[in-house]
């Protein structure tokens, strides 16, 4: 019972003909989308003519996909919800929700263990999801995909399994100051255990981690380089392929935290040539409770187990046990079966839209967000300014002078129903480096629209005025 998702045409063009073509699809899910869409098309005709970016006007990708996300259509605190916290977690389309439901309704069963009908079906679907992940990131084989609870657990897996057996005293691990806590703390714990040394790359004048410094820090002592692909605060993108080359030149491995990149753009581990890559399902329209680690098969094969228990063993005796091949070796106990299958459905949904389409839309919408934010007086947006050479992700972390980020976020939520995040976004070292205690962050996904950004800016202006009047 594969979830069949017909490929949707890419929505770069605002021609209504393109949109009508949805109606020719037969799957019920898409019909649902179309029914909703027809009510939207009335609004589309009143779309602002003054739009500078034609692909952002109705019907943009945001407008066409919004109907698929029931949670977006609600009011909070008396205003329409404007959800701009996608870097924290994404919303789920109906098809993913239906997949979860149908798993539990129709074929829930423990995987890999039984031979009865339900169990075989569950196992098939679970492994099919694994294959979907593998092909989504262009891994060479599905055995290179280990399902974990989330990206954090995946990084810990590498630290305990690969790190403990490969790192020793005075070995060096290179990270950046902009890493998420999940990409820092496991290595701190490991370094304490084995006596390894952590080195951090600072930011350059564009507020991107300095690649020249990184190259300087690399040496034969370096055993591992841990970098983010896309920063959840700076919105910068790192040249991962180059980093991998430089690292391999000195005999070091590379682990990439792709939590903010896999959901938003094409990520090809084969072409990037990374050794390890981690991502979370919940940031890419999938359910919470599942994430994955990609590792090159020869690396995974050489790694000892992480958690011990059922599923990861081959034979168990009283005095010793032998272990399964990867990926099973690293998947002890009953996994989050329904959730992994839900992740598979999310991948199908995203592939249906096309990652390139999603990425292009977000580059435009992200730039629109950035430019409109610049119009707020006394605002400081972190990370590089977008240009021809530098592409930003569709998120902006910022501070308004003399107004605390938390005050902004609270007022935006309470008075305008706008959901942004305030705090340190799990990057305390980065905030310390930037010299601030906290920042506010608005992050987009492909179902956000230009109107979302406009509403946000208007609400932010109102909020800034309110607090400024109290100074």
């Amino acid at each position, binding site marked *: 019972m594969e979830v069949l998702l017909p490929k949707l045409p890419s929505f770069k063009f605002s021609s209504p003909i393109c949109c009508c073509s949805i109606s020719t699809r037969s799957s019920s899910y898409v019909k649902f989308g179309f029914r909703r869409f027809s009510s939207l098309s009335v609004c589309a005709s009143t779309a602002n003519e003054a739009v500078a970016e034609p692909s952002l006007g109705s019907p943009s990708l945001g407008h066409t996909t919004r109907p698929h996300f029931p949670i977006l259509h*609600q*009011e*909070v*605190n*008396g*205003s329409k919800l404007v959800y701009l916290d996608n870097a924290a977690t994404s919303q789920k389309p109906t098809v993913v929700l239906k997949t979860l439901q149908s798993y539990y309704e129709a074929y829930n069963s423990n995987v890999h263990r039984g031979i009865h009908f339900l169990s075989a079906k569950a196992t098939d679907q679970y492994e099919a999801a694994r294959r979907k992940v593998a092909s989504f990131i262009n891994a060479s084989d599905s055995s290179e995909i280990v399902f974990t609870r989330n990206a954090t657990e995946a990084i810990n897996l590498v630290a305990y399994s690969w790190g403990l057996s490969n790192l020793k005293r005075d070995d060096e691990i290179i990270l950046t100051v902009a890493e998420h806590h999940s990409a820092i703390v496991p290595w701190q714990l490991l370094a304490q255990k084995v006596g390894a040394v952590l080195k951090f790359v600072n930011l350059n004048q564009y507020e991107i981690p300095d690649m020249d410094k990184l190259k300087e820090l690399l040496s034969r002592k370096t055993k591992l380089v841990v970098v983010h692909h896309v920063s959840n605060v700076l919105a910068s993108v790192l040249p991962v392929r180059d980093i991998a080359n430089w690292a391999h030149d000195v005999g070091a491995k590379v682990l990439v935290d792709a939590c903010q990149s896999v959901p938003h753009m094409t990520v090809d581990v084969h072409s990037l040539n990374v050794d390890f890559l981690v991502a979370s399902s919940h940031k890419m329209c999938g359910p919470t409770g599942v994430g994955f680690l990609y590792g090159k098969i020869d690396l995974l094969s050489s790694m000892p187990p992480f958690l011990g228990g059922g599923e990861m063993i081959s034979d168990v005796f009283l005095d010793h046990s032998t272990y399964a091949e990867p990926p099973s070796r690293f998947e002890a106990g009953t996994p989050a079966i329904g959730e992994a299958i839900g992740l598979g459905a999310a991948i199908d949904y995203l592939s249906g839209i096309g990652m390139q389409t999603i990425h292009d839309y977000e580059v435009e919408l992200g730039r629109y967000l950035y430019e409109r934010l610049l119009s707020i007086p006394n605002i400081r947006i972190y990370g590089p300014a977008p240009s021809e050479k530098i592409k930003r992700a569709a998120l902006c972390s910022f501070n308004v002078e003399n*107004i*605390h980020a*938390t*005050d902004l*976020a*609270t*007022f935006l*939520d*309470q*008075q305008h129903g706008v959901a942004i995040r*305030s*705090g340190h976004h799990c990057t305390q070292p980065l905030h310390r480096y930037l010299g601030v*205690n*906290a920042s506010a962050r608005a992050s987009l996904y492909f179902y956000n629209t230009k109107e979302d950004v406009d509403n946000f800016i208007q609400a932010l202006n109102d909020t800034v005025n*309110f*607090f400024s009047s*109290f100074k």
Partner: protein
Amino acid sequence: MSANSISSCSSLRFLTTRTIPKTPFLKTPSFIQIPRKNNDHTFFSFRPITFQKLPTTPSSSSSTTPSPSTTEENSLQPIEELPPKLQEIVKLFQSVEEPKAKYEQLLFYGKSLKPLEQQFKTNDNKVQGCVSQVWVRAYLDPQQNNNVVVYEADSDSLLTKGLAALLVTGFSGRPVSEIVRVKPDFVHLLGLQQSLTPSRNNGFLNMLKLMQKKALMLFVEAEKGASELGSSSSSSLEVKDGNFVENSKGSGAGGESVSQSSGEKGAEFTSSSEVKGGSFVENSSGGELSGRGRRIKEKLEKELDPVELEVEDVSYQHAGHAGVRGSGDGETHFNLRVVSKEFEGKSLVKRHRLIYKLLDDELQSGLHALSIVAKTPSEVNEG
């Protein structure tokens, strides 16, 4: 315009904006505002109804709320138990309907908060669980004989500063027992909860708890300090120079005053008087004694036939603290020095108990505390 939710759980929020909550209806008054836009509840008229008045006494009722049920009062602390300034603040916020106006009020409070000096922004003073930085400092007010707790607070977030100001205004200068009695869920009474995100709320509660904890710590330290100098309200004594302060029944709030060491006072006493053999020396320091002071003197003279007797009214030093409240004539604290043969053979505790027994009537009628020096003539001669 806002629909206010009771719970921080996002799924419940969803519920409350769409339907009448299934929870007992009367849990909602005072902070539920029905959304103006999708007003599909036939129960209510078009005009938004806000239930903002919590009954402050069982008999009162507001024009818009149905009569309160006991479930409401069982779950929330009655407003009368709150410190008086806090009661005022609660009423003020309840009378302000619009969330935006509540915010303005909150910010206004914050503005009035005296900034905290940098040296006090320590880790011990930092409130955990706050998205912004909040510090709270607490100390005993030396100008009030270290009997009351004074708070200072600061935050880099304006809204949090407002919350801190509420607590500082409400708690400063109040007795410890009153402060620690305040239950965290009083924040519901403010009607602000729905205007605050759960994480901020968490900070508010932690701020409250930190202030309560600090008050308790100060109280305990002061008690310890007093007992080290030889006094405590229990009967175990470590007497250094024969002086201690007995804390007699308080004003019903149960041991809220901090015992005060009287070391210095004792020294003053012993140096100020002379014993003339056999003769009765009377010395009342300061101004004249009125009413109670005279009665005390007469009683002690009559019963103990003292060689020396000094009665000093020091109530003015305790003016403003809880023990004094309710004692109209202001004669609440006295220093006594009694030298009498009656004390021979009696332990210090017994001597003090004797005096208290003699002055029982006064103690029942507003005398709050006595600082006693009780010696025998021979002890004084050895001196």
